[in-house]
């Protein structure tokens, strides 16, 4: 009995192996996975293939083929920069999900969020993830900045990348702040009131700044639409451009800094 089962199991795994071989040999498969891909048939762990994995992938080639050995130590970077980027991706994915259920008007916004939490499958979970990931991103961007400062990594030739980093910190804060208003509950309304009142104290043209930000003299449905567009379209667009330059400059300025 056991023997027949073993034979049967062997037969299935043989069949599976044959199917995998056939699939990996097909033209379609080989057109999708470029030479050096670990999913290609007969991938071997060689220095050449290790280089191809990076060079032949649009995502991975943000990285160089090789990095300094000290740079892969978690204790050096604590992954803050990479995690900020990962949280941004997570926020984009969860944010797109939320956009399907949300209308940015004073009459509908709060009800949409409430319905999302109570009637949409995984709605509450995804909204929670979006909110906590946003707070975490503000924290990780700030900690990334502190890490870079303590390593002196803003020094030549990386001065300008530090400036871009400060812009990214500012954009992260603005993204978080614009998102804060969207649930249209008491917390959102009054937190934004306090925040925009502070901006209204800008010298000389304070009232104009406040008027442009709110889309009127008071926070209302126009503010909601304005901040919604800023939050889902304009600020992400700008931050992606700055992130692209930031990552590109990391490599052009000689890779990761250090060792100390």
């Amino acid at each position: 009995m056991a023997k027949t089962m073993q034979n049967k199991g062997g037969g299935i795994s043989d069949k599976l192996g044959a199917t995998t071989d056939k699939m990996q040999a097909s033209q379609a498969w080989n057109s999708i996975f470029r030479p050096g891909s670990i999913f290609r048939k007969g991938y071997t762990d060689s220095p050449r293939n290790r280089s191809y994995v990076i060079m032949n992938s649009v995502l991975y080639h943000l990285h160089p083929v090789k990095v300094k050995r000290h740079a892969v130590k978690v204790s050096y970077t604590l992954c803050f920069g990479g995690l900020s980027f990962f949280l941004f991706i997570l926020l984009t994915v969860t944010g797109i999900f939320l956009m399907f259920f949300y209308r940015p008007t004073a009459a509908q916004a709060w009800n949409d969020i409430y319905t999302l939490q109570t009637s949409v499958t995984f709605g509450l979970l995804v909204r929670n993830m979006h909110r906590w990931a946003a707070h975490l991103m503000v924290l990780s961007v700030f900690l990334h900045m502190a890490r870079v400062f303590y390593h002196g990594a803003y020094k030549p030739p990386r001065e300008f990348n530090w400036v871009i980093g400060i812009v990214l910190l500012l954009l992260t804060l603005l993204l978080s702040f614009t998102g804060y208003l969207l649930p249209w509950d008491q917390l959102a309304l009054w937190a934004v009131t306090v925040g925009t009142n502070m901006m209204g104290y800008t010298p000389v043209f304070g009232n104009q700044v406040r008027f442009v930000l709110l889309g009127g003299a008071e926070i209302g449905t126009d503010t909601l639409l304005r901040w919604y567009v800023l939050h889902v379209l304009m600020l992400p667009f700008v931050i992606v451009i700055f992130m692209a330059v930031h990552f590109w400059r990391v490599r052009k300025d000689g890779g990761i800094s250090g060792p100390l």
Partner: protein
Amino acid sequence: MTEIPEHLRKRAEEARAKAAAAKADDAAPAADAPAGEPSAAESKIPAHLLERAKAARTKAAGGETSSEGSSGGAVATATTGGAVATATLPVAAGPGGHTQRLLTVVKSGSIQDVKATPQDKVHVWPHLLSIEFVAALACLAFVLIFSIFVNAPLLELANINKTPNPSKAPWYFLGLQEMLSMFDPMVAGVLLPGIGLGALACAPYIDKNPSTKPEDRKFAISLFTIFVMACATLTIIGSFFRGPGQLFVFPWASGLFFEL
């Protein structure tokens, strides 16, 4: 003595053997050459150089002899030398009768100053990508599990006519809101954060110290640590120690007045 690379030594030996063979062939036709000249015949030094050398030698030898005599001798040797050189061009001569000789092989280390020190590098795949993957998974797991157990706040519908007490900005602006109790709103809300961000962005251009070693950067590190600590302290006081009317409270005595 410098080492001569194997292939160069072999080539030189072959050339020498070839030259010896050529000389043997030449021996018969060149038999009528003057008896005193065989060394000159073998020589591959251009004729005009030989002349010059001979002239110099005779000049040095007959230092006190009349200039007329020495010049006459020089002319005589020049004519004989020229005749010999043209008569006995070596077989292995290159264009223009010149041949090349391997004088010596100089190792690169003695003439090149190599400034770049070899760096210890590792392949990004798998050394860095695997770490990034694990970090991203851990981050995702943390956000997911935290979101399952802790819900994002959703208070009642926004109401402009009902101001909550206290009204607080998002947590990352609570440091600024805390400064409102100490300074004029224009200073606390606009000037100080503006100057702070500006100074931070200009840090690489202000800090001219090229060293990245912590022991050389005591002032910069102290200043930045004070900045981070001030931010953290103000934010924590603003978040947890401010109650109704922005009065100072102890969270363990009066409860939390804080929403994320």
